[in-house]
């Protein structure tokens, strides 16, 4: 961890450069918005098709600035005790029993006070991020959580502080860098959106995607990377149930690499199609026109 990391980034271009060093290639728009999030201490809300690198951006920023990445995966029914903090009940009981067994003249208030000590506090991601800040807090798939949780998050994100009745208020000295991602299964509440900088991540262009494959998988030849990226671009135009994202492109290249294929032909493509397409209907459609897709 270093506190200078955040302020050391002086421009959007520098952030893009640092992200590139970690293997994340950010476009001009994303780099600018990312820089603004750092400079203005605003949460960054990322939306986009699955597999376009929303989550990896948070990991990239953490690595580029040498900060810890603290991840909170949202799901239906998540509540404050899973996001913020909880008391370790079994250990509190154990402590109580120990006090009871060892000292006969314990003062009630003191025993009580010792029960709500820091060491019995289980820090969950949001509290951890506030305490360990500067850090990167990734709130993944916020659209899966309920509205109530959004409201709670809004409160934390606007003040960067949390009050624990038994302990007092915990405030982040430096606001953590917050990245929220959403797959848009549900409209995120406007109040939360207004707190954030918003960016929609699109699929990258062909040249950038080739570069991404080359950067992430140095073992893949330039030719294979180009072939894979070009085929994925054509597959995306096919109007499928689930068009492949960048994550799938990388998976595909990785699968081909593992099979020792140095060129993408009909045979190797058919064998590895499962890395790109996850629906039977899609696989059938692509398989029909495979030779056309692979034509260079």
């Amino acid at each position: 961890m270093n506190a200078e990391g955040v302020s050391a980034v002086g421009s959007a271009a520098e952030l893009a450069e640092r992200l590139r060093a970690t293997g994340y290639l950010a476009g001009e728009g994303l780099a600018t918005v990312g820089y603004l999030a750092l400079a203005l201490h605003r949460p960054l809300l990322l939306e986009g098709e699955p597999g376009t690198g929303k989550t990896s951006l948070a990991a990239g920023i953490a690595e580029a600035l040498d900060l810890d990445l603290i991840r909170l995966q949202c799901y239906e029914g998540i509540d404050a005790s899973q996001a913020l903090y909880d008391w370790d009940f079994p250990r509190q009981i154990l402590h109580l029993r120990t006090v009871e067994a060892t000292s006969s003249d314990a003062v009630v208030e003191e025993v009580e006070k010792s029960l709500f000590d820091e060491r019995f506090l289980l820090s969950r991601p949001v509290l951890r991020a506030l305490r360990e800040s500067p850090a990167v807090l990734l709130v993944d798939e916020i659209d899966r959580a309920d509205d109530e949780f959004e409201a709670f998050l809004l409160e934390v994100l606007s003040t960067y502080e949390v009050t624990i009745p038994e302990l007092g208020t915990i405030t982040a000295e430096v606001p953590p860098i917050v990245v929220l991602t959403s797959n848009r299964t549900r409209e995120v509440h406007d109040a939360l959106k207004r707190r954030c900088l918003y960016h929609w991540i699109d699929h990258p262009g062909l040249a950038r995607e080739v570069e991404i494959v080359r950067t992430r998988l140095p073992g893949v030849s330039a030719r294979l990377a180009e072939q894979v990226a070009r085929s994925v671009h054509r597959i995306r135009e096919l109007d499928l149930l689930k068009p492949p994202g960048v994550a799938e492109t990388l998976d595909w290249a990785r699968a081909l690499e593992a099979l020792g294929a140095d060129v993408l032909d009909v045979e190797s493509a058919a064998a590895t199609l499962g890395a790109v397409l996850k629906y039977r209907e899609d696989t059938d459609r692509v398989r029909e026109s495979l030779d056309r897709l692979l034509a260079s």
Partner: protein
Amino acid sequence: MTTEATSAEPDLALTGFASALRHAGLAVTADRVHLFLRSVAALDATMTADVYWAGRAALCSGPDDTARYDEVFAAWFSGQRSRGVVRRTPQASVQAALGDDGEGQDGKRTLNVAASATEVLRHRDVADLSATDRAELARLFGTLRPRAPVRRATRRRPSHRGDVDPRRTLRAQLRQVGEPSRVHYRRRGVRPRRVVVLIDVSGSMRPYADSLLRLAHTMVQQAPRAVEVFTIGTRLTRVTGALRRRDADFALRSAGDVVPDWSGGTRLGEVLKVFLDRWGQRGTARRAVVVVCSDGWERGDATLLGAQMERLAGLAHRVVWLNPHRGKPGYEPVQAGIVAVLPHLDDLVAGHSLTSFAELLEVVADA
């Protein structure tokens, strides 16, 4: 609009741009403008690209906004403001289309029975009503009592039955300084299940569109967070936001403003596909009760419609099809569209009168 953009007062030019966006229909609030100005200040105000990205991040709130944003941005900063920023024209004709279309269909039947007028109205086909009866019917919509269907929640709640709740049991012990006491139980609670209503607003459904939107409005009012409403015609439009307004007439009017394709053609299969691609598969239709309100008139090939309904049936908890013609005597599901979707439906209900709407609400509530 605001003053001339000069390099000496960049802030004025920027706030002017923000208000132009607001006029173009984006939800630009004062704090967003503030964030925009701060963002530009952190970057380079003389660089077009920097201003562009700062504005996109601060002032847009969804992918639907970006196209309009690009348009306004180009118009504002190219200096050709004389052409005027694209102001979204409110579609004034909509209300008339929704309400009383006095087409000679109101052949009033003389009723010689001793039933109350209200009771008769409840059973009459909404397509055949006169303007006064329509107004009366609109009032009767207030008597519908929708219930939200429920599903098991992930979270467990304290209960008298169910499995042992170690946390609460231990907490109770802690309160008694570690002495074992009563065992606490917990089990899964219930939450409202999501309901998705798709309303066909094409020409053939025109006499019913108004009533169906009113029906959707009562459902949205009852469970604002659990009901999603879309209109389908030649394109897909989300009207949930408009229908969340409490006053029914106001809500319907604002829904009318957002729907661009009233009384147009139908491309059921294609639009359903758009719904599933953009919303349904990502989560909106998953485990939801989906109500499709349409007469199933599909011009041309119905295979796409059938395939999309199969997809929908795989995602949804229950698929209900409301067809206004089903309530009419002598109706047979023989149209190509209905034949194609029939195997994938859980229920096919009528939807032509207030009574049948009440029945639909029952079907949805018990799903």
